């Protein structure tokens, strides 16, 4: 079904249209929420769609714009959840394996290198904004402008973040030391 027809039915309150929108975009929204590090992915994903359905009468645009709307809501919900989590200090019993002050062995480094084929691990080494840009561009078909809209940044900033993120991934995959990580992070945040 064409998105405009779907949108028209959704504006009329047809439940099947809402179900179709959910089935089309729930995976992307959940993936984005998951990559952003949210703990309760199901809750946030459902909240995002409920908020989007409640305001669909005021929405104007194409399907990419609707995805951008979903991801914008998702991003804000994730930020809210992370802020709530940051206010609560987690208390957990001490475990030797979880202590970051312990010195890693050479075997650990070798094992990490062996499992470095998965891009997710390399993405984890990027800055949060670089990781968000790559996730948005990969997970969805958003343009640079729509990605900038979702992130609340300028297009030029998004271009720079994307270029440095892909370069860092390339270096990480090639096993090169990432000398530009700190500098790119400082430039991106500036």
């Amino acid at each position, binding site marked *: 079904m064409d998105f405009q027809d779907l949108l028209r039915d959704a504006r009329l309150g047809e439940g099947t249209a*809402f*179900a179709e929108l*959910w089935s089309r975009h729930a995976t992307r929204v959940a993936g984005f929420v998951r990559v952003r590090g949210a703990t309760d992915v199901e809750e946030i994903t459902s909240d995002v769609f409920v908020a989007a359905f409640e305001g669909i009468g005021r929405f104007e645009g194409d399907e990419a714009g609707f995805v951008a709307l979903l991801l914008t809501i998702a991003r804000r919900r994730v930020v809210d959840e992370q802020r709530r989590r940051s206010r609560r200090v987690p208390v957990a019993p001490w475990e030797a394996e979880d202590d970051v002050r312990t010195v890693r062995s050479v075997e650990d480094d070798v094992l990490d290198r062996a499992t470095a084929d998965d*891009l997710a691990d390399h*993405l984890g080494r990027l800055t949060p904004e670089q990781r968000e840009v790559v996730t948005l561009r990969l997970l969805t078909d958003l343009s640079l402008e729509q990605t900038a809209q979702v992130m609340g940044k300028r297009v030029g900033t998004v271009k720079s973040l*994307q*270029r440095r993120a892909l370069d860092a991934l390339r270096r990480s*995959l090639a096993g090169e030391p990432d000398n530009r990580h700190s500098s790119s992070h400082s430039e991106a945040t500036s």
Partner: protein
Amino acid sequence: MTTLLTHDQAEALIERARGGDAPLASGLGQLATALAGHRAALAATPAPPPRPTLQAWLTPGPHAPVRVVGPPWWRRALHMVAGLGLGVQVAIGAGAAVAAGLGIGIAHHQNLLPGGGSEQQPTAPLDRSPASGAPSDESDATADPTAAPAGTPTPVVPAGAPSGASAGTPGQPGTGTSAGGTDDQGAEDQGDDSGQDDSGQEDPGQDEPGTDPGDDPSDHAGGPDDSPEPSEPAQEASDEPSQEPSETDGPGGPDEPDEPDASPDQAGRAASRLS
């Protein structure tokens, strides 16, 4: 490779990962493959089950397109009470304003406001005096100016008294003041009783001011005392309108009724002013 990626190279990588066939620079194939695999892995992740709040939207059937969650009940109740209070205050204010305007209008219409007292006193008795003998008084007022002002307080009583004494039946209570004293006297007794009426009106107006200028109430009371009983109701009916204006006039009331009695010329001037 130590150089940074260009923007075109980054866009080509993203395009390749999305399934496009953008040309890639050398050395970027591994990254493009990793990006495409990561995208496929993300897309293959099953969507989480919807929560009950969302499930209500996904069920087939019509739903409200825009379902806005309202404020909590206590906030709505607070707004409602505040709105009611404001509405009640506005209603009270509007009602008070309307009542005040209405009262002022009525008072102005009845000449009860200060400043209209000079005109009020003569007009009020004249408005009510025709009840005691409208045609005769009007004719007298036009014919003899001195009789009308003297008749304003007094003509009611003397006019009723002689007529009641002479005719008897016209002096019946109620009807005697309005109907009995008008046409019968005007038609039949103008020739005969006009002299009596005039004498009845002029006697208290001419004689008594000379003797008892300030004894209007006693004069009013004295008239009916001399007259037979049938004239008493007429006198009562005529006394009430004649005394009311002086009571409502306030401080200026007692003096002004005395002036016409004391000097018929002034009363005549007032009557001519009114006419």
